[in-house]
């Protein structure tokens, strides 16, 4: 990350106002934020470059597909640009960015649901059913080499877990994505979601238990017909 920031700073050094190395080292985002706030488009573009992967990753986890993730990321950065003036100096920029991302994804998901594009539970069940059938077929097929069988089983498990994530309630999904996939601490997740750490802990615990139960059930059903 540090190398990335250094590279970005070096490539556009001639177009940005000169800042001391100490300032840049202290908080590279603070420097970019103050420049972007002043209307420097290049600084804002660099800010996007530094954060786009996180934003897209969270959006993809929460929305489940590439196109929605792209739409969400665009909307996130537009909101960042619009409300950058309200961002308080010294505040955690990533926490602020995560909060905007979660809100944008929530809005987008609601819009999709209102437009009849909701994630169909029966569709998930159909996928899960297909996964179970594949598991049975793989186990019946005696010609499949053991390593290939193991790899297939692993792949099926991963598919099941992804499906399990999609079945979680909105808040639990956001909590477990930020905690377990993005690696934020419970307190950071709480700040990003606008709730209390104890609530986040409860949501994360519930989500982990549900995912485990979901996968156990499907694997058990898949293996019971052997």
């Amino acid at each position, binding site marked *: 990350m540090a190398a990335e920031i250094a590279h970005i700073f070096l490539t556009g050094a001639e177009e940005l106002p000169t800042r001391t190395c100490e300032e840049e080292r202290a908080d590279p985002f603070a420097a970019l934020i103050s420049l972007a706030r002043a209307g420097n488009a290049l600084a*804002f573009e660099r800010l996007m470059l530094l954060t786009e992967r996180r934003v897209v990753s969270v959006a993809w986890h929460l929305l489940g597909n590439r196109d929605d993730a792209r739409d969400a990321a665009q909307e996130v950065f537009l909101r960042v640009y619009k409300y950058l003036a309200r961002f308080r100096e010294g505040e955690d920029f990533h926490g602020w960015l995560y909060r905007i991302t979660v809100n944008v994804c929530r809005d987008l998901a609601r819009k999709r649901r209102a437009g009849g594009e909701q994630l169909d539970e029966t569709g998930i069940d159909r996928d899960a059913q297909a996964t179970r059938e594949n598991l049975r077929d793989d186990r019946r097929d005696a010609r499949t080499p053991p390593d290939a069988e193991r790899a297939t089983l692993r792949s099926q498990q991963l598919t099941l877990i992804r499906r399990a994530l999609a079945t979680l309630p909105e808040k639990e999904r956001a909590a477990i994505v930020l905690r377990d996939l993005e690696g934020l601490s419970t307190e950071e997740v709480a700040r990003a979601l606008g709730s209390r750490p104890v609530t986040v802990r409860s949501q994360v615990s519930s989500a982990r238990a549900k995912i485990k139960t979901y996968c156990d059930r499907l694997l058990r059903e898949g293996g019971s017909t052997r």
Partner: protein
Amino acid sequence: MKTLNCEQASELLPLYAAGDLEGARAREVAAHVAACDGCSTLVAAYDEGRSLFAEACAPPEFGADFYAGVRSAVLAEIARDQSRPSTPSLIAALFSGRRLAYATTFALLLLACLVALQHLRRNTRAMPQEIARAQQDQSDPSRNEVIAVNTPSPPQRATTSINSQPGNGRRDDSGSRALFLKARRDAGLSRLETETRRDMPTTLGTMQHVRDEVAVVPRASLDPALVSAASVPSAVESASGESQSGPEVSRIEIQTADPNIRIIWLAPRKAEGPGPDHDNHENVDRN
């Protein structure tokens, strides 16, 4: 240290497995897991599930084009937004040059229409002022005589009686309609003007209701000048079949809110004078 059972521990295992528990609670769960094979297996399952979860949900590689597309779309939208004129400049552009003259003319026309409308509404609201004037007339005996009107028959009919002295007479309980009947000497007729405070009747149906509330004062109790003016001694008199010894018919004119509608009521009068039902009504207040 508190000892946990399996049920209590199982609720905390998802957090314990990921290292989310701290302090005494973490030690309690650790002690239980060390002693319980079932819970120990569960912790291992959660551990494995967690790593599987991270592996399963690793985002795909979107590629540089994907990110470049996001950035360019955002920057294009920002540029479009900046090139868009602001609201004050839009207003200024809208009302510049000849458009300003048109807008001013339109505004003046609108203002004139509003003034005319207001004037019209004020005229239609003149009725309450008339009522106030009538009340003034009540207290000013030199101008008019305000008479209380009673129902001559049938006796059981509810009547509205308005006393010439405020607070002394009985008024309609609803208070929605006050009836003032004015007899004007200078008109030469016993002309009764009916005025309502709120909803002046404008149809014959509602006027029927008003008529029910209006009672004719027997002629004997009226001022002779008024009575003679109100009497119709010719055809109506003969139709009523009463003798010439007294006035046979009282004429009441009720002017509604609509100037085109005036109700003329010819009420036959009893020859023997006011009946017992008139005792509780005030008849004429003359000064």
